């Protein structure tokens, strides 16, 4: 039973990380109507950079207690790649969606070699410094406190994003632009700056998620490509463009993975695809999205 609890806890941790990336995807899709295949690349970038950043930090004698904020900081620092990439994508906004998709695919290809160039072909990982936060145990069940902190951080982010989007003026402007770009422009909204800001926020969510995950798993070249499929599964299940959808979708995917590991180990990955296909067929808008097809 405790093995089950452990796996479930792992699922929740995974869901927390998935949520962060999915939230970024949803923001970018909701406001700019772009589906970003390079979300996995941002995730991997965050992971690799997180490892390097922490590596330097410990070299300079920074306390290992600061590993969590350090990783978060490293993720945020990478936000500077947001604006230039958005400028690149801007060139194809007016064109058919397939071109935007292809451009993000081009980014995926380019990022792969950037990772290889900077960090080499082998997976990189952090040592177990994160265990400095200790572990919680209850009988046979144990979970690193670090994981719990990440989960809490994800929940805080969800709450923060929700409050931001619903409660602040800027958030309202974002939602207005997402709803009707032309109208927003007519009302004086500088849509270009909004797009740049939103894309950067989306990127930062992705890179931070990647940074947060490296204590528990390695950064590898495959990461960027494999993650895309899961992130998309979350977004489809939750509904394109919906924040709530990102949260619920991430929870579902995280849970399904955990449950499949316990009950149907053979079909772990297959279960997710089947659910994605099922959702796309019976409720193409996802659980919370608005139908586009």
């Amino acid at each position, binding site marked *: 039973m405790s093995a089950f609890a452990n796996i479930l806890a792992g699922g929740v941790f995974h869901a927390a990380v998935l949520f962060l990336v999915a939230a970024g995807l949803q923001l970018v899709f909701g406001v700019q109507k772009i589906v970003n295949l390079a979300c996995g690349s941002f995730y991997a970038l965050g992971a690799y950079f997180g490892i390097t950043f922490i590596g330097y930090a410990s070299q300079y004698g920074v306390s290992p207690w600061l590993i969590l904020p350090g990783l978060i900081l490293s993720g945020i620092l990478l936000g500077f790649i947001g604006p230039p990439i958005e400028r690149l994508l801007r060139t194809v906004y007016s064109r058919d969606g397939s071109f935007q998709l292809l451009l993000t695919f*081009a980014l995926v290809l380019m990022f792969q070699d950037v990772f290889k160039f900077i960090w080499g072909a082998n997976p990189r990982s952090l040592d177990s410094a994160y265990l400095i936060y200790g572990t919680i145990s209850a009988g046979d069940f144990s979970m690193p406190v670090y994981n719990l902190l990440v989960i809490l951080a994800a929940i805080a982010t969800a709450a923060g994003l929700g409050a931001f989007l619903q409660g602040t003026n800027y958030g309202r402007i974002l939602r207005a632009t997402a709803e009707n770009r032309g109208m927003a422009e007519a009302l004086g909204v500088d849509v270009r700056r909004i797009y740049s800001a939103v894309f950067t926020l989306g990127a930062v969510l992705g890179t931070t998620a990647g940074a947060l995950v490296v204590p528990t798993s390695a950064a590898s070249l495959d990461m960027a490509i494999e993650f895309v499929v899961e992130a998309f599964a979350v977004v489809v299940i939750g509904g394109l463009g919906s924040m709530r959808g990102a949260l619920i979708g991430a929870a579902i995917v995280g849970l399904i993975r955990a449950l499949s590991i316990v009950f149907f180990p053979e079909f772990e990955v297959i279960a997710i695809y089947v659910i994605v296909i099922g959702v*796309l067929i019976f409720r193409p808008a996802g659980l919370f999205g608005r139908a*586009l097809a």
Partner: protein
Amino acid sequence: MKGPLAVALLGTVAFALLPYIVPAYYVGLMIPFFGYAIALLGFNLLFGYTGLLSFGHAMFLGIGAYGAAVMTGLGFKSFELMLVVVILASVAIALPIGLLCVRYVGIFFGMLTLAFGMLFHSFLFKFYYVTGGDSGTRVARMKILGLEFAKYNKIEFLAGPFYYYCLGLLIIGGFLMWRIVHSPFGLHLRTIRDNARKAEYLGVHVHRFRLAAFVISAAFGAVGGAILGFRVGLADPELVYWTQSGQLVFMAVLGGFANFFGPIVGALSYILLQDQLQSLTQYWRFVLGAILALIVIAFPQGIAGLAVQLKRLVAGRPA
């Protein structure tokens, strides 16, 4: 019909003479070109002519490659029989998947096909007792047109008889696709691409025809995949990963998806480009990605589209 016919004839002659002009290495590169070219002819029926972008098309190449592996594993050596089997298999699999997918367009179609493609990939991994899992399954040597060509070793066989066999397959495939695209059926596909709603009002069966295009493209994909699998001698799950589907799209766009010959040009260009880049740098993916970005941003008409524009310029007509 004059221009395209000339291009086709020229191309055929060029490829027929290639083994006598070009080093054997490049002749070896042409087999995957033939495979991808045939697969892309089918892909472009779906993309360029019907307006549906599939991000899971590599799965049909996989059906071709694994079909070849299964057939040789069972002791069947006839390439033709294998082609028939993989075509039937791809049609059988494309029908239910297509039925589900063609009700959606744009990004939803893309995501559904990506999901199915990855589902297929997972099956290949999981059912390793049939498929060999991670390491793939062997595709053994086969007989083409009933002939063994035993005195040729594998390399000679590939650069010789099999080369011309594949050229033949491409010509047949090209001819079929040309007729399909220029038929009443093809016209209806293009109306679906341009304005599906209006097409309905003109009596076009939108869903049915999208499904038909999907199934036909699957069959072409299977033939292409069989050639690829045979050439490598291995059917392996990586052939089916979503990035491989992305590569197909890359080739189509590189060549120019608005032009009949575009995909073929794209396959050739990509293969040659990748080969050259790989010998120049280990970061060839970066360069390819940059080229794709450049094409998408500045030259969406692709190489074939550019060629057509150039021809018009030279002929003095407006582009």
